[in-house]
């Protein structure tokens, strides 16, 4: 029910935006076409400005992945986390999630196929993936667009949120599905 309402809302949101805002503009005497084109001009420069930041982050992440760092780190951390009852299968996903969206999607899809979509592990993987964003990608795009090089506490806060999201995902999934 709730899901249906939100689904319908999502389907209609963009068309409604694209109609309602220009209509309101016309009502307030705005030359909508001229305004639109004036605003849209900035699209190219903004996208171009992001490139150096995105190259820096994606190259570093790509190299780490190709080197097998995620697998090695997982194996290294496994004995420690096993004591905390952290499911070992989820660890590569937890490490990959802040770094790469496509990489973590690949891991989740595999976990779900291997363990089954209705298993605790499958649901846990899906919950862990869905409850956070790719921190380093968001950082590169959003801060890159305005030329921010000194990110201050933003990376740290983003990573804290990532750790909390994985711990919360494990806790809630065990409560709900185990």
């Amino acid at each position: 029910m709730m899901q249906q309402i939100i689904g319908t809302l999502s389907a209609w949101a963009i068309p409604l935006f694209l109609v309602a805002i220009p209509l309101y503009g016309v009502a307030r005497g705005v030359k909508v076409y001229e305004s639109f084109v004036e605003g849209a001009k900035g699209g190219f420069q903004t996208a171009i400005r992001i490139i150096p930041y995105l190259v820096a982050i994606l190259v570093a992440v790509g190299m780490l992945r190709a080197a097998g760092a995620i697998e090695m780190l997982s194996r290294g951390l496994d004995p420690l986390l096993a004591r905390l009852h952290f499911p070992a299968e989820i660890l590569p996903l937890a490490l990959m999630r802040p770094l790469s969206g496509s990489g973590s999607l690949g891991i989740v899809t595999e976990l779900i196929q291997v363990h089954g979509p209705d298993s605790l592990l499958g649901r846990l993987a899906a919950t862990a993936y869905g409850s956070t964003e790719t921190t380093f990608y968001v950082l590169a795009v959003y801060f890159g667009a305005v030329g921010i090089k000194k990110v201050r506490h933003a990376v740290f806060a983003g990573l804290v949120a990532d750790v909390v999201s994985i711990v919360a995902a494990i806790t809630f999934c065990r409560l709900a599905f185990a």
Partner: protein
Amino acid sequence: MLNYIWLAMVVLAVVLGGINGRIEAVTKAAIDSASGAVTIALGLVGVMALWLGIVKIAEDSGLMALLARAIAPVLKWLFPDVPKGHPAMASMTMNIAANMLGLSNAATPLGIKAMEDLETLNPRPGVATNAMCTFLTINTASLQLIPATMIGVMASAGSRDPAAIIGTTIAATCCALTAGIATVKVLERIPFFAADRGEGAR
């Protein structure tokens, strides 16, 4: 901070790549990722232009100012440095709304627009403001109400109840968001993360 993280990532990749005998793969990944980054950025040009155009209409018609004033009481606590009725309030609200509905094609351009609006309040170009860090943290937690991608993956893997993960996902997101915002609010007071740190040292 990012200087060290970035350096550590690159050094670690080369060292581990060497140990694992994957140095060719590391080279290939570096080159491919660099081109991939440009493809992603260029892919943003169209949607970026579309939403910046629509937002400009909303600005010229006074709709953004209206939205900014309406939302100010809610966002005032999160963004105390952003003046009441500032355009950044409106663009941040639109970004958050788009995120919740899972409209990533709209959320990213609107979020970038919000960053540009926040940048107009930045006394130190190149250094993130408190408001920018808070806004970024909100965006690194996934705000969407329906995790559509995961429901799709679950369904295609033959799940009997693909939507079962909605509740746990929302609960975990809320925890992550709360923790992220709390961390931002605490760390922004710590001298190590101060915006003017290192100024006048050279």
